[in-house]
């Protein structure tokens, strides 16, 4: 199931909320766990077994590691086994085909690999269960003896399918000790509506623009169209992913949980380093804690530090997909981060802010081309046409048409990608709330929610339309 669907919003969520809130405290996690299993099984009736297996397996490993804490050798063995099994499962379902492809290429063989569909969310929940086992092994967290609580941590539907990746330590206390309040629920509602609007109203429509431009044969694309396309995608993926994270955080709040932020206006960054502190924050944090720092982080000599960065970025790229363009995408950013660490970062700080903004956006936007084209030669052609190679026109009527019909959408999207709207909104909110005049407060407190109601209504309209499927007598 996905959040941005009628069945989730108008059937699953109301039912789950009712069940959750009528249950006594000691049953609440069980309700959440059951609902999450239904949520997952709805889309993956068979693959849910993998998730259940991973959860049970790591629960047991956690218990064993804790039990044999004094026996160093056994302890370590269990830990290693757990990591191997977890990564093994992930590799098998996600990377097996890719690995076979490369072996075939290098050794000139013709091995076949089964074409397995990827279990939804496996990259997310595997990283979560591994984080638990590692932290128990390193004695950073208490072992979780209650399998329902542990299962809730792994499978909780708000963050199961698309993050944020929640480290066990961040949520440990909340599992058995959290408060649901009306205020939190309201904050969660606000967040959820924002996320839904980002996904349905902005991301999906930007996606249409990108889809049209991406499918135009490269020789027919004007320079401006090429830029419009990739800027459209740049905005689409941001609103899609951050919108989903907003919904996750909002839903978490509705059930009393506080998750970490996953996005912080990444496109206002002034350097690539800064970008990766604002984009998909939970993934960066995971790699930092479990790969970068254990390798020595930046506390080793320059060369070793660069090696550590290479490893982290190779894995970050690989995490995004089983294809070389994703790995290159990761290494591409690694290169810029190393250069910034070496001297560019300091230089940028001495420059006017605009320089940093333009530089960072350029690097990121070109990066997205690499991300979107698995075929590297198509990727290169697209980048070439963005920079005027290939003898293309600057602008053609198709490009003008795109500007004319998508201009308003792009402008709104760009505005929403900056803190501009939020700061106006917060400004308004504080000014209303500081007024002693309770009537003004009441009015303000109604107008703003009305705006949110409008967002909710529009989002619903667009969702209903996704199922618009006319039967056409077209050929007649």
């Amino acid at each position, binding site marked *: 199931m996905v959040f941005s669907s009628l069945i989730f919003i108008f059937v699953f969520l109301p039912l789950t909320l009712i069940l959750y809130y009528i249950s006594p405290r000691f049953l609440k996690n069980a309700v959440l766990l059951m609902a999450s299993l239904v949520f997952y099984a709805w889309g993956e009736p068979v693959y849910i077994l993998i998730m259940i297996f991973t959860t049970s397996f790591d629960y047991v490993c956690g218990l064993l590691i804790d039990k044999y804490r004094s026996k160093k050798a056994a302890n370590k063995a269990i830990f290693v086994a757990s990591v191997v099994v977890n990564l093994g499962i992930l590799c098998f379902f996600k990377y097996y085909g890719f690995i076979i492809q490369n072996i075939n290429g290098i050794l000139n063989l013709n091995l076949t690999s089964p074409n397995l569909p990827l279990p939804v969310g496996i990259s997310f929940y595997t990283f979560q269960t591994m984080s638990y086992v590692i932290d128990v092994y390193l004695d950073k967290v208490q072992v979780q003896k209650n399998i329902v609580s542990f299962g809730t941590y792994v499978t909780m539907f708000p963050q199961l399918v698309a993050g944020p990746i929640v480290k066990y330590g961040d949520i440990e206390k909340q599992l058995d000790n959290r408060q649901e309040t009306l205020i939190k629920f309201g904050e969660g509602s606000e967040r959820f509506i924002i996320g839904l609007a980002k996904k349905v109203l902005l991301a999906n429509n930007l996606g249409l623009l990108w889809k049209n431009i991406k499918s135009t044969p490269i020789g027919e694309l004007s320079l401006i169209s090429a830029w419009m396309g990739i800027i459209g995608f740049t905005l689409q993926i941001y609103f899609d992913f951050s919108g989903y994270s907003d919904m996750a955080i909002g839903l978490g709040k509705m059930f009393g949980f506080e998750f970490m932020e996953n996005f912080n206006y990444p496109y206002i960054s002034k350097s690539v380093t800064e970008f990766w502190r604002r984009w998909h924050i939970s993934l960066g944090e995971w790699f930092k804690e479990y790969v970068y720092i254990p390798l020595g982080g930046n506390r080793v000599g320059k060369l070793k530090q660069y090696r550590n960065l290479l490893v982290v970025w190779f894995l970050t790229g690989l995490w995004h997909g089983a294809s070389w363009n994703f790995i290159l995408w990761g290494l591409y950013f690694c290169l810029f981060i190393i250069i910034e660490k070496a001297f560019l970062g300091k230089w940028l700080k001495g420059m006017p802010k605009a320089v940093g903004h333009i530089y960072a956006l350029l690097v990121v936007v070109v990066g997205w081309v690499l991300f979107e084209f698995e075929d590297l030669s198509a990727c290169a052609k697209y980048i070439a046409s963005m920079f005027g190679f290939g003898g293309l026109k600057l602008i053609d009527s198709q490009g003008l048409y795109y500007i004319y019909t998508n201009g308003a959408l792009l402008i709104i999207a760009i505005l929403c990608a900056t803190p501009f709207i939020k700061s106006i909104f917060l400004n308004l909110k504080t000014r209303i709330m500081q007024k002693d005049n309770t009537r003004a407060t009441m009015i303000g407190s109604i107008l703003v929610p009305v705006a949110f109601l409008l967002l909710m209504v529009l989002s619903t309209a667009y969702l209903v*339309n996704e199922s618009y499927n*006319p039967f*056409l007598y077209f050929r007649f």
Partner: protein
Amino acid sequence: MDKNNKIYNSVMAILLIVFLFGIFFLSIITPDKEFSESENRKLAALPKYSTKSLLKGNFTSDFEKYISDQIVARDFWVNLKADSEKVMGKKDNNGVYLGDDGYLFQMVEKPDKKDIENKVNAINSFSNKNKNLKKYFMLVPNSVKVLEDKLPKFADPPNQLEYIGEVKNKLDDDIKFVDVYDTLYKAKDEYIFYKTDHHWTSKGAYYAYEKLAEDMGLTPHKEDYFDIKKVTDDFYGSLYSKSGFRNLSPDSIELYTPASKNKESWNVQYYDKNISSKSIYNMDNLKKKDKYTVFLDGNHSLVKITTNNNTKDKRKIVIVRDSFANSIIPFLTGHFSEIYVVDLRYFTDSLDELIKDNNIDDCLILYSANTFFEDSSVDRIGW
């Protein structure tokens, strides 16, 4: 501050809860709808549960379709989306342009040159096999070209005339190419194409008929030869359904029937359904969604129209066509004794034999440009 924060968040919480539960309960209470007029399809019903379909994923996806189809006030949501897109400046949806004056235009793909060559070759070889037949070919440009002034600003679809010209050049000399672009273009400010459907109107077909008659060496009947009757002004056509655009005025359909003083009468045989009729119009179809099927009941593999008026030469003609021809046939009945109407998508017999067995004199191939370029059945003309 705290109190106000509490009020604000309470309102937010209540807002979401009321909205979610409101739609949830209303959708349950309101009875399920069976058919969607605007989408011209059956709406999903509650799926039957079976463990097998659950494991295969069918049950869940069918259930989701059911929820989407049966959500309360479905048409309200669809209309709201269409309206907000208009506000945002969107000028096309689902392959349909929204033009000026409420005109919808089908977006067309660039035709493939090799494909055109193949089709014209098929027609040429058919022509070679039937040397005694007098052959005519009308390739009708669609409204996306004729009414291009009404397209949204900067819209730049492929130029149909370029490809129509290719066909004309490659066609054998003994096939008379009937060029109707100029005729239609001259009348572009008249109601010659439907606004919400991809076909031309009876008036548009009439103008094309005048040009066709001229090329065939016939004297076209003037409009006063016919009784022109508006039979509906509530026609929402194919493009309306496809595009999802709303708040557009419907089209009206006019039927040209020879005035009774001209004493035309017909016998229409539908071979695939084994039905015959006395009229080339099926008035019952005006009650259906696709009102264009009032013309010759839409599409059949082979229809034979026998007229019993006194034409001087009593010529017989076969029309190989797409649905555009259905609007022009009413004008041709006054010139031929027998008209055979063939749809290559369904007609599986040999066209050559049909021509030979019935001593057909003339052949008219009539397609709208878009169908001609996109449909593959034209290749079958020689089979």
